[in-house]
């Protein structure tokens, strides 16, 4: 169905906001799948927030969290605002291999994702296991960098934008 050209600018704005929303959902799901999941809490703590905004805590545990549009309200996406996708867990830097892993006591349980075993030297990163040992990981070293720079982020972003523009009025 044809649509009057006078709606074009508004349609593009609406489509862009929807695309950003769906892209954020795709990326958060991509991060949840790519990242570690022992209790599942880290996977449930991704947030899309304005730059410098505060993030919340975990939304659940026991499984890899599945994000949908309700986790990223459309009203958050305003023109001229930069958005970040960040994780709200206090140990997020360690989980993303950006800071050395600091061992802490934790309750042993069945891991959400399959575990790999090895030995982690003092001061090493979470994912930096070698040889045999009792230390475990549920995502490889530098999974975060891999997601960001090795194509998956762009693929999820593109998928989200395609879906967002597909949903928007005037772009069918």
């Amino acid at each position: 169905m044809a649509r009057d050209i006078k709606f074009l600018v508004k349609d593009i704005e609406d489509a862009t906001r929807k695309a950003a929303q769906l892209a954020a959902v795709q990326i958060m799901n991509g991060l949840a799948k790519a990242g570690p999941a022992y209790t599942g809490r880290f996977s449930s703590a991704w947030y899309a927030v304005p730059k410098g905004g505060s993030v919340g805590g975990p939304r659940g545990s026991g499984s890899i969290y599945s994000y949908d549009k309700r986790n990223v309200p459309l009203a958050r996406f305003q023109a001229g605002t930069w958005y970040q996708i960040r994780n709200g867990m206090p140990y997020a830097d360690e989980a993303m291999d950006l800071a050395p892993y600091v061992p802490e006591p934790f309750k042993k349980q069945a891991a959400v994702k399959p575990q790999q075993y090895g030995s982690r030297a003092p001061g090493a990163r979470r994912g930096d296991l070698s040889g045999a040992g009792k230390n475990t990981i549920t995502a490889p070293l530098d999974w975060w960098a891999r997601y960001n720079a090795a194509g998956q982020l762009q693929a999820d972003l593109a998928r989200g934008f395609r879906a967002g523009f597909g949903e928007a009025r005037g772009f069918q």
Partner: protein
Amino acid sequence: MNYQAVRAVFETPLLTAYNSLSPAVPVYFDNVMNDGADSAEEFVHINIQFGLTTELTLSDNPDRIRGVIVIRTYTPKGRGPARNQTLINVATTALQTINSTPKPASGVYVRTGAIDGPSFSPDFGGTTPDQQSRRAFTPFFISRIEAGFQAQVIS
């Protein structure tokens, strides 16, 4: 697909560069046991991961290997950043050399994206006083650079 050849494009010049330092600095690659972490004062850790391998188009699925290389240099903590920055600069220079190598007639053609970093941990910017941090237990001062890359295997 020749992932081993792609890996070699990065690992060989980096290993050569660190081996040519005096004294040579140990380099640990993926799946090589780092048995020196509790005895060596400084070492380098290089992690290469592959992401998407092909690119889907309307009528084809051509090879287009993408990945990321992450390089970390470990030096003693509490002695300032100079030595660490010297070591990470070796990696930066090697990556820039790889990036300026002309496309060969055969073999592997690689181009990296922007080199991100170095970032340092524990942070010496004063945002988190190290001695109050959980990271005060870390025995090394660590810098990290990363770069995404695209590779094409030319047969």
